[in-house]
């Protein structure tokens, strides 16, 4: 839709109506530490307002990529531009326009929630008065008003994460970098966090998120890349990746540990693809129930059978031959 509007306009106007200059543009981006190549020539383009995900297991190169985008790690090779600026020369200005939620909280734990925000705001050269007003607004936004004057030390993990998020918003960032924002949080805390991030997205902030959780990527990202060994192995929307690489549903069957592979000949022709894991078989099909009926028709009786929607986890498995969390 957008594409055709753009093309139609070209013939009529001198300049295109929509000037979607990317917030982040990476070309053949490389990061090496000595002999080790953490990021091996990736291309990424992220447009304003987009929620973009880097997905992959530990060591895939996500955090190294994020650190280069955050202008706290020099680019080894290739091009990187953020806000159309060069991180190697304009790092200060770029960092002034973005917010960072690091993988591990970097809060001043002996100070109060409010003090944390005030001090951080001063790093951006925001006046004390504006800092105070903004801090109160953000503490409200992350639902910590009653903890305003509590020491960060006394907060729960989820509350600390919310302080980190509030702090990263002190400068009204155009771009928000979230490095594994919910790792280590319980499900309830994750949902609160997702909800806040979703609200931020609605306000138009561009978000870049790394995660190794598939459900998180499906919840938060418009578009994502799957990274493995420093390279991008797939790119698309969460749903697009699922339809492109696997089927809509998965039938999970278990025949007992180590006995799953022996069943393969009997299952020939069932589903569109079968993945063998040590503890179960994954049978991909657009209709999982139909596949299960076929098993019954062939009088194959697994110890257990489960039909579920396929997820990014399955995409990752298909692309790399490995499960995501090992």
């Amino acid at each position, binding site marked *: 839709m957008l594409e055709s509007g753009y093309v139609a306009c070209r013939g009529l106007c001198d300049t295109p109506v929509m000037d979607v200059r990317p917030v982040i543009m990476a070309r053949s981006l490389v990061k090496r*530490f000595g002999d080790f190549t953490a990021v091996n020539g990736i291309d990424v383009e992220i447009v304003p307002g987009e929620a973009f995900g880097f997905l992959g297991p530990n060591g895939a190169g996500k955090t190294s990529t994020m650190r280069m985008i*955050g202008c*706290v*790690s*020099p680019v080894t090779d290739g091009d990187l531009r953020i806000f159309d600026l060069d991180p190697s020369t304009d*790092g*200060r*200005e770029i*960092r*002034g326009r973005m917010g*960072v939620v*690091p993988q*591990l909280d*970097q*809060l*001043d*734990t*002996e*100070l109060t929630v409010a*003090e944390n925000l005030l*001090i*951080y705001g*001063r*790093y*951006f*050269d925001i006046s004390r008065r504006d800092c105070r007003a903004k801090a109160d607004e953000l503490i409200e936004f992350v639902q910590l008003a009653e903890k305003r004057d509590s020491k960060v030390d006394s907060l729960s993990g989820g509350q600390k994460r919310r302080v980190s998020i509030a702090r990263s918003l002190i*400068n009204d960032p155009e771009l928000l970098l979230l490095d594994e924002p919910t790792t280590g949080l319980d499900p309830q805390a994750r949902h609160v966090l997702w909800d806040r991030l979703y609200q931020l997205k609605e306000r138009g902030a561009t978000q870049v998120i790394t995660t190794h959780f598939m459900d998180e990527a499906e919840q938060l990202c418009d578009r994502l890349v799957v990274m493995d060994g420093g390279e991008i192995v797939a790119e698309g929307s969460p749903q697009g990746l699922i339809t492109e690489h696997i089927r809509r549903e998965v039938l999970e069957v278990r025949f007992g540990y180590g006995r799953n592979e022996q069943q393969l000949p009997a299952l020939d022709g069932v589903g569109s693809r079968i993945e063998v894991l040590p503890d179960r078989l994954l049978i991909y099909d657009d209709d999982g129930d139909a596949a299960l009926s076929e098993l019954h028709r062939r009088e194959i009786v697994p110890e257990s059978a489960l039909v579920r929607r396929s997820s990014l986890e399955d995409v990752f498995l298909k692309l790399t031959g490995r499960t995501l969390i090992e």
Partner: protein
Amino acid sequence: MHTIASLGPVRVYNREWTYFRLVWRTAVFGSVIQPLMYLMGIGLGIGELVDGGPAGPDALGGVSYFAFYATALIATTPMFVLGQESLWPTMDGFTWSRAHQAMIATPLSSRDVALGKGLYFGLRGLVAGAGVVLVLACFAETRSWGLIAAIPVGVLTGLSYAMAFAAWVATRDTDNSFSALLRIGIIPMFLFGGAFYPVDQLPPVLEAIARVTPIWHGIELCRGLVLGGLDPATGLLHLLVLLAFVTAGSIAASITFDRRLRP
């Protein structure tokens, strides 16, 4: 963006100051009590022996042992305080609280972090030096306007060590060697740097070494400012040496902080 660049270290200092407000009572108390104890224990006790010895007060060029030793404390106390302050709290910023990483994710640079820490060390040195001076002002032998001028000299002496230590801390993964550094890097300075006796009492090799340490220059300058007997050219030389140590340490810290924070 230029204003941010020039004020960066002040922003870092601002965070340290907020922390200092939590502990300032202990710091101030320590700055007065510790020199007082040293003065009573060593200055008066040993002073009695030295001043009443065969050479009498001439042993130290007409100055009482109490005054001789007491003036050295204006330099040695900031050295002790900043020696500690530049080790574990600096490591905290890199490893435990990761406050330094948080800072460089903002417009602040790794150099701002290094220099901002330096500003804060300066504050701690100021508190430590002022505490000693306050004590010395209570004794007729050491009461002098020179005490005021000696405070910044004490600060520079402390910073000579603190910036070098902070630079080194940035290259460490653990704090295992910190206590050892205090034992081999600070205690000998106190013992052989001219606090207890003039360094010409040392064997020639040790004397030569003592004369290139920041602590010797700091002690000599403090002593000269308070008790007199120091010609201006020599005084200026002491000051320039201290400034050179602080500058070199600050440059080193800016480099090692950057390597640590922006791999």
